[in-house]
C-alpha cells in the first residue's frame, strides 16, 4: 500500500483547518493525524486503491490554503448569517398572522358571498322603488336633475 506523510505547522494553520483538509481526502486515502514535535502535526496518508499520491498531496495542500481564507471571515460570516435569518423569520411570522385571521371555510365563504349578493339585490330594488317617490330628487345625480 502506498503511504506518505506531510508535516504541517500549527503556526501556519489551525488544527481545525488541518483536520478539515485531511477529511476532504478520505475518498482517496486513509488519513491519520498525530502530534509530531512542538507545534507540528504529522498527517499520514495510506492511499486507497486506484488513486494517485501527487493528486492527493496537492489537493490536501490546496484545501489547507482555502481553509485559511475561510477562517479569516468565518466568525463575521456566522454572525451576519444569524442576523439575516432572524430577520427572515420576523417577516414570515407577520405573513402567517395575516393568514390566520381568515377563519371561514370555503363553504362558509361561498355562503357569505351569496348573502352579500342577496342583500345588495334587495338594496338595489328598494332604491328603485324609492326613486319613484323621490319628490325632492335626492336619489338623482346632478346630471339627471340638471342635465339637458
Amino acid at each position, binding site marked *: 500500500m502506498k503511504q506518505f506523510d506531510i508535516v504541517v505547522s500549527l503556526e501556519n494553520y489551525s488544527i481545525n483547518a488541518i483536520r*478539515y483538509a485531511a*477529511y*476532504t*481526502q*478520505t*475518498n482517496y486515502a486513509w488519513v491519520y493525524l498525530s502530534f509530531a514535535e512542538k507545534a507540528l502535526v504529522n498527517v499520514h496518508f495510506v492511499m486507497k486503491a486506484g488513486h494517485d499520491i501527487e493528486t492527493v498531496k496537492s489537493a490536501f495542500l490546496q484545501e489547507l490554503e*482555502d*481553509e485559511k*481564507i*475561510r477562517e*479569516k*471571515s*468565518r466568525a*463575521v*460570516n456566522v454572525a*451576519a*448569517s444569524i*442576523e*439575516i*435569518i432572524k*430577520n*427572515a*423569520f420576523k*417577516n*414570515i411570522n407577520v405573513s402567517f398572522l395575516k*393568514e390566520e385571521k*381568515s*377563519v*371561514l*371555510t*370555503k*363553504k362558509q*365563504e361561498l355562503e357569505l358571498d351569496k348573502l352579500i349578493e342577496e342583500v345588495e339585490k334587495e338594496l338595489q330594488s328598494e332604491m328603485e322603488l324609492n326613486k319613484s317617490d323621490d319628490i325632492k330628487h335626492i336619489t338623482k345625480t346632478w346630471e339627471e336633475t340638471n342635465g339637458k
Partner: protein
Amino acid sequence: MENKQQNKKQTLLFQQWKKNKDHVLLTNDFGGRIELSGKLFNELCDNPDNIPQQFFDNGFVSEMLDFGKLGLSWLNTHCNVCLSPTLHILVMTARCNMQCLYCQAGAPGRKKDMSLDMSLETAKKCVDFAFKTPSPVLNFEFQGGEPLLNWNVLSETVKYIRQKESESDKDVSISLISNFILMDEEKANFLLQNEVSICSSLDGPENVHKKNRHSENDISYNIVCKWLKYFNQKYDSQLGKAYKIFRPGAIITVTKNSIGHAKEIIDEYVSAGLESLYMRPVSQIGYAAVNWNSIGISPAEYISLYKEAINYVLTLNKKGVSIIEKACQIFCEKIFNVGSGGNYDLDSPCGAGTGQIAYNYDGNIYTCDEARMLAMEGDDLFRIGNVNDPVEKVLTADAVRACKYASELNSQPLCSRCAYKPYCGICPVFNYATQGSLFGNMATNFRCAVNKGQIDFIFELIKDKENEEILKKWIQR
C-alpha cells in the same frame, strides 16, 4: 448605491467556492453568485481594498448587507422549515402486481396478502391527521405497492378528501402514482372528475422498460404507453369540462440497462406526448441493493448518460419540440430564481417531517417515503408516530429533529464549504441506508457525486447564451 464605506475595514464573506482552471464560482446562502477570475479572487483574498460593486450587491461584504433582501432570498430557499408538511403520502397497499428490479418499497413478491392493504378507517384517519396540520396547502399522494389494488378504499378516500376540502380553508391537490395495470375507463373517469393528477413510470423504449420493470406477460410497457396517451388526450380536450385535467407525468429510473439509450429514452417520452421527464439514478436500497450487480450504475456512468440526454433535449428544444427534464429544471430554478425548486430532497434541511410525511398502510407515520420504504425492509428508525397520535407530537418527533440536523448542509463539513450548497440537499435516510449514518460521508456519497456532476454540467451549459435562455424558459413553465 456606491460602496461609500471603502475606507472602513471590510470583511469579505467568502466561505464557499469552486475553482475551475482560471475562474472561480463564488456563492453564498442568500442567493449571491459571482463568477470571477482566479487572479481577482486571489487579489481580493490578499487585499480587500478595492472591492467591485457586485460583491456588495450580492451580500459578500460584511459592512453593506441588505438584511431584508438577503433574508427574503433565504426564506425562498428554506420555506419548508417554516411550514408543516404539505405532501402527505398515503400507501394504499404494500402489495404490488409487478416485480421491478429496483423496487425500494419492499413490494416484490407480495401479491395476495390483503393484510397489507390500508383500511378505509385508517385512510380517513390519515386524511383527518393531514387536515389537522397547520399548512394551508395539502397535496395527497396515493402510492404503494400498487395503489389501484386497493381501489375501493382509494376512491372512497378521494371522496372523503374532497368533502373535507369543501369544509376547510385549505388548498388541496391529489395525485396518484400507478403502474396502470389495473386502470380502466371507469377508474380513469372517476380520477379525472375528482381532479386527481396521474403519474407513472416509463423507463424508456420497450426493451429498456421490460428489463427493469417485470410484469406478468410483460404487459407493463404497452399499458403504460396506452394510459399515458389516454390521459394526454383527455388533457388536450378538456375545454368545456367542469373539472380541471392535468397532464400526466412519468419518471425514469436509470439503471445499467439504460446505458447507451439516452436519446431513445427522450424519443419515447416525446412520442408518448409528454412534455417533461424526470430522470433519477437507481438507489442502492431495498430490492435494488439485492440486484445491484445487474442494475447498479456508478455516478460517472449516470452523469455521462444524463449529459447525453440533456444535450439531446436542448437540441429538440431548438427544433421547436416542447420537452424539459425536471431535475435540471429544479437546479435551474435554484440557480436563476433563488427558489426552492419544490423538491424536498434538494432542500437544506430536507423536507423530512416538515415538507412531507408518509403514512404506511397500517397507519404508522414516517418522515418521508424513503423512510417508510426502509420500514418495509424491517428498520423502523424513521417512524415518527401513528395516525392516532396528536399532530404536534408526530411533527416534533425525535426522528424529524434528527433529520433536520443531519440534512442541514451547514452541519456537513464538505457541504458547508461547497459552492453548490445553495442548490443542493442530502437525504439522511439514503445516507443511513447506504453509509450507516444519518450524516453519511459526502466524500464517498453516491448522491453527492451525482448532484455535483449535474450542477457542474448545468454551469457548463449556461456558458452558452442560447442554452441559458432555453433553460430559463424551462423554469417559467
